[in-house]
């Protein structure tokens, strides 16, 4: 094992997890959410990917809160959760209405704003 890597491993075992690892995990989850948002075709799955992105951002808020030893990040995460819950209720009602009027869940077929 190289010298620097060994030193880093010892540091992590002694000090805990670097905050940047949490931020990288958050970035990975956000990228997965964007990928699902771009490539999936079912409205419901696209909506779930939005929730995934919100969760990723919440994770970075809580990690920053731990880094600064302040509770502000938790408060912001709380508000994001509230907005996400409200958004889920309204969004799913919109999905129900779209399905009632169009009979499809494919976002490619719901494109009447295009022309």
């Amino acid at each position: 094992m190289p010298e620097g890597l060994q030193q880093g491993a010892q540091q992590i075992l002694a000090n805990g997890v670097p905050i940047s690892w949490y931020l990288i995990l958050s970035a990975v989850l956000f990228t997965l959410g964007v990928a699902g948002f771009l490539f999936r075709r079912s409205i419901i799955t696209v909506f779930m990917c939005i929730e995934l992105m919100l969760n990723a951002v919440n994770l970075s808020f809580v990690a920053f809160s731990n880094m600064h030893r302040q509770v502000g990040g938790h408060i912001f995460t709380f508000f994001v959760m509230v907005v996400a819950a409200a958004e889920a209720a309204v969004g799913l009602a919109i999905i129900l209405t779209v399905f009632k009027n169009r009979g499809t869940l494919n976002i490619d077929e719901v494109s009447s704003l295009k022309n």
Partner: protein
Amino acid sequence: MDIFFFILFATIAVVCGISVILQKHPISSALSLVGVMGSIAVLYLALGAEFIAMAQIIVYAGAVMVLFIFVIMLLNAGAEQAAGRSWMAQLLGIPALLAMFGVVAYFIQSYFGNAGFMKFGNFKGGSAQSVGMALFTDYLLPFEVTSVLILVAILGAIVLARKELD
């Protein structure tokens, strides 16, 4: 110990996240998303955010995902058919996403590369008491505005989902 739990639950979160976007059936995606949210709740707990971890499980894994599953059941949503995607998305999508992730990871490493370490128990400000204290003193106005937001959301959902009354 911290690193062990972090790697375990980060792996679960990423695997479930990949599963969310690869599963063909919406109900499988929803259950994978519950896995992501549960492992994120454990990571919150490790970061000292006890209240937020519980709220995550109750609000997200409990309420929001049940709402999703109800809608999937109600609409009888089947597996999505592989539609023809635009060649632009196929060609540029994955490289653009990787570029975005690369830029974000680069900035994280350069700005927060040595921002400190998370050790379980070194931040005790995330209890329900301290979150409530901050919520009802410094953040009282946003908290009250939130109630109006939820009221509007309830009315909107009812208006959108009701049957026509004529």
